[in-house]
């Protein structure tokens, strides 16, 4: 395992910013340290070598950025979350003629597809639009394709059943060349788009934002800025969902929300 010290990480962050313009300075250091170390280990090089390889026009810096920003997700991750959304959130949504959902930090689309299935089974999908955004172009392209390995669909299927899905997950994909392809019907209400939570602004108003396990990337300071963006993007009485280990504590907007579920971190904007 190739290790990297915090001081070296700061140098790496500066170098990446110089070469690519991508700024990691608001990203949580312990996680970056681990990811940089894994990158070096996998490519069998030390920090000095990496710094030399990062040059204008080269692909390495983008490869590294992807590696340091990628998130591993599953469809119906935390099945009980989806059960809770059905029981606590959907009743509020019934009165809206059109519904806008935002999956902020959508990675390869797992959460967006899960939400689409949930909406479909509740009869909401036809009047819903799901915006799914990420800053990582590579995962976003994967999301647009909606292709998963068959082994990952096994996990997804288990999760789906635990989330009280009404049918079988295979109702929503077909198998081609030993891969699972999400059905076009599910995808037609999802818009995948590039968006950087740390730099880009409000682009619509939503009744529901899922931003699970994304805040863990950011420093305390940058987090507050991102929380403000999410707050500004929510309609009154709209819902904000965070990951299981995240909370609204230190967010700067904690007083504007009512807690719907403190374990699963579902909040409703009340002022």
């Amino acid at each position, binding site marked *: *395992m190739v*290790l990297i*010290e*915090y001081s070296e990480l700061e140098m790496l962050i500066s170098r990446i910013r110089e070469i690519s313009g991508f700024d990691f300075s608001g990203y*949580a*250091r*312990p*996680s970056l*340290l*681990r*990811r940089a*170390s*894994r990158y070096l280990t996998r490519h069998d090089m030390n920090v000095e070598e990496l710094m030399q390889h990062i040059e204008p026009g080269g692909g390495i810096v983008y490869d590294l950025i992807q590696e340091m920003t*990628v*998130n*591993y*997700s599953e469809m119906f991750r935390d099945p009980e979350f989806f059960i809770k959304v059905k029981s606590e959130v959907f009743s509020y949504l019934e009165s809206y003629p059109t519904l806008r959902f935002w999956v902020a930090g959508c990675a390869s689309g797992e959460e967006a597809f899960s939400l689409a299935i949930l909406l479909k089974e509740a009869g909401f999908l036809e009047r819903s639009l799901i915006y799914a955004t990420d800053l990582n172009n590579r995962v976003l392209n994967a999301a647009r394709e909606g292709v998963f390995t068959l082994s990952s669909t096994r996990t997804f299927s288990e999760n789906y059943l*635990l989330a009280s899905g009404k049918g079988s997950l295979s109702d929503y994909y077909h198998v081609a060349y030993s891969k699972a392809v999400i059905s076009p019907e599910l995808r037609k209400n999802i818009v995948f788009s590039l968006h950087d939570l740390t730099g880009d602004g409000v682009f619509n108003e939503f009744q529901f934002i899922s931003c699970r*396990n994304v*805040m*863990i990337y950011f420093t*305390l300071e940058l987090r507050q800025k991102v929380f403000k963006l999410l707050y500004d993007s929510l309609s009154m009485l709209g819902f904000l969902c965070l*990951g*299981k*280990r*995240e*909370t609204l*504590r*230190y967010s700067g907007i904690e007083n504007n929300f009512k807690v719907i579920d403190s374990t699963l971190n579902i909040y409703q904007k009340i002022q």
Partner: protein
Amino acid sequence: MKAVNGDALSLVLIGGSSGSFAIFEEILTLLVRPISFALVFVLHRGKSSVSVLPELFRNKTDISMSEPHHLDRIDSNRIYFAYPDYHLLIGPDRRFYYDLSEKDFFSRPSIDATFISAAMSGIPVKAACLFSGSSADGAFGMKLLADRGFATYVQNPAEAESARMPSEALKLWGKHSILNRNTFSTAMQNIIY
């Protein structure tokens, strides 16, 4: 990120996998007085594990236990458990950080992730212990902690329910102290108090 000075904080790190649960329980029952450090347990668990360890272990000790949230401060005289399906990292600013990168040795939480982050954090590690388990997770972190001059202990592989984990740690670094069954309580008490 700057390290935080001020009140002294030190860590005791304990890692284990299959066959370690009962040992963790035993260690907790030895905590009969306040402890001068933060105690961090990393136990491999399935992602769907719903058991809340602080509740499960409630009757074992009076010291406050929790599964921390992201950015929670690390305090002395408290016990923390890594949460399923996330890596638990220790920051130089004395806060916990979660990470959702790949698994190490098919495990998330991984013991290496926590132990390595502790070694890099600059926070003194009073002791690190590794117990029974069936993968090589933890071996690298243990060696790193030993390299940095911290006390490291592994369960005697011959007495572990799954010998692989302590064996791999000893293979990578032969000088970890060995914890034997017949002197376990005394040895742990000496580490803790």
